[in-house]
């Protein structure tokens, strides 16, 4: 899906989807629905190392790097955060580190969800975006020598 589209195109798509909603209730219902549909992260990824810091709710984020592209998977115990995560994954996953690093995620503002990026929300969306960009940066640096790398340790590997 997102692998064929540019980040900007996916963002535009999301903005268009949200423009159909009249009320905030509808927007939240949609986000909650996205949260419910996001496949749960396998338990082996739900470890401390993959926790995103600074969240009132818990967010786990794992990524891997294949053929020059970063792929994210994530989960949360809170449904709205999970819905927001689902959108971030849809936008950023499957793109190159450079594409991810240069994106400003303007769609969040355009769909009226800026408050979720505010410090006060402490829902970890901001930390989540930062962490996604950190992964991208790390892969970019490593990309000089390797093209296959998996980040987000699993229980097996950490044992």
């Amino acid at each position, binding site marked *: 899906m997102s692998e064929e589209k540019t980040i900007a195109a996916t963002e535009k798509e999301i903005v268009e989807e949200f423009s159909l909603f009249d009320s905030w*209730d509808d927007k939240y219902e949609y986000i909650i629905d996205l949260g419910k549909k996001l496949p749960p992260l396998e338990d082996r990824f739900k470890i401390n190392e993959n926790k995103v810091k600074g969240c*009132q*709710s818990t967010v786990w984020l794992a990524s891997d790097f294949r053929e020059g592209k970063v792929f994210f998977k994530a989960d949360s115990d*809170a*449904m*709205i*955060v999970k819905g927001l995560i689902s959108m971030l994954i849809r936008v950023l996953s499957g793109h190159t580190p450079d594409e991810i690093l240069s994106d400003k995620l303007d769609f969040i503002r355009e769909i009226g969800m800026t408050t979720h990026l505010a410090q006060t929300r402490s*829902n970890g969306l901001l930390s989540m975006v930062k962490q996604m960009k950190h992964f991208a940066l790390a892969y970019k640096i490593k990309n000089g020598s390797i093209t296959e790398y998996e980040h987000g340790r699993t229980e097996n590997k950490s044992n």
Partner: protein
Amino acid sequence: MMPSSTIQKAQTLDVIAIRKQFPVLNREVKGRPLVYLDNAATSQKPQAVIDALLDYYTNYNANIHRGIHTLAEEATAAFEETRDAVQRFIHAPAREEIIFTRGTTESINLVAYTWGRKNIKSGDEIIISTLEHHSNIVPWQILCEEKNAILKIIPINDNGELMMDEYKQLLGPKTKLVSIAHASNALGSINPVKQIIEWAHAAGSLVLVDGAQSTVHLDIDVQDMDCDFFAFSAHKLYGPTGTGILYGKKHILEDMPVFLGGGEMIKEVTFAKTTYNDLPYKFEAGTPNIADVIAFKTALQFIEDVGKEKIRKHEQDLLVYATAQLEQIPGLRIIGRAKEKVSLISFVIDKAHPQDIGILLDNRGIAVRTGHHCAEPLMKCYHIPGTIRASFAVYNTREEVDELTGGLRKAIKMLS
């Protein structure tokens, strides 16, 4: 005999008239009238308090205690009047026992850094409880670590009440301080501080009472309570932020080393030696928070004008009503069922994260607090990541409680 409705009217407060005094209650959030139920975090401010701040900056802004000009005299007089008002409000024996700080947190830290560093030795014991706010945990942890002293914790029962028998067992010859919340910010439990203090004193220990959550709700008489220290914040009593109080018994305060060094707290300074000012100025280094302290007097006046008894009745009515209404919501579990509670309710909802509930309530203009309420050890004790907390003040109404329960039902439906 008076008809009961007349009695009722005489004893209840005019909430509509009170609401008119709080301008923020007129605003809308997300297109709906604000329902502010986060009063345990901070209360809203009446117009009179806002006016007092404006009046100070508009008409007599000056630094206090040192200037000889008219503005300085007026500002000093107004500032010191608040000290007198606080003294009366908590029934302290002397005005110099009232020290202005930035808030409860600084008040507790002041004691930890001055009294604590002088009096706590290796092997000494400090007792707190499971119910404490981080502000009444961390300063003692820092002190205990530094002094190799021991922090002991009074456990709670399932209702969120202190286990007094266990407390008695914890007291001993090594106990130097018991530092305890008067009321829990996370559960609302009112602790039996008089009993706690009596037993602590019998064991030779001092007692600090954290009054952050109690002072706005309960009658505070530090002499009757016989606490050695009492700490609270102005902003939870309809006053400005950034101002707090530390009350301490005079002979203890006099014996304490100074906290921060600088202007105001000195008597004489030479490069060889500095002698310190008398109480309370000894602990008030630098230019204080003049405007907010002055406006705090107006906040106390507001409470006294309405009447603490009336406020308590009103808030307790909301607590009882809200408890009954919330209990009817399937899957909702109230955390903290102490017999004596201040007007706040913590709860969790099956299969719904507190944060989701908080966001969806905010979407309907309802402000509650979600999370661990700066009481992580307490949340761990209940094996929950956090709660949703609704806390009521003088201006809240039963209709607002209905808005809350309606909002909760809608949020639960959206999330299920």
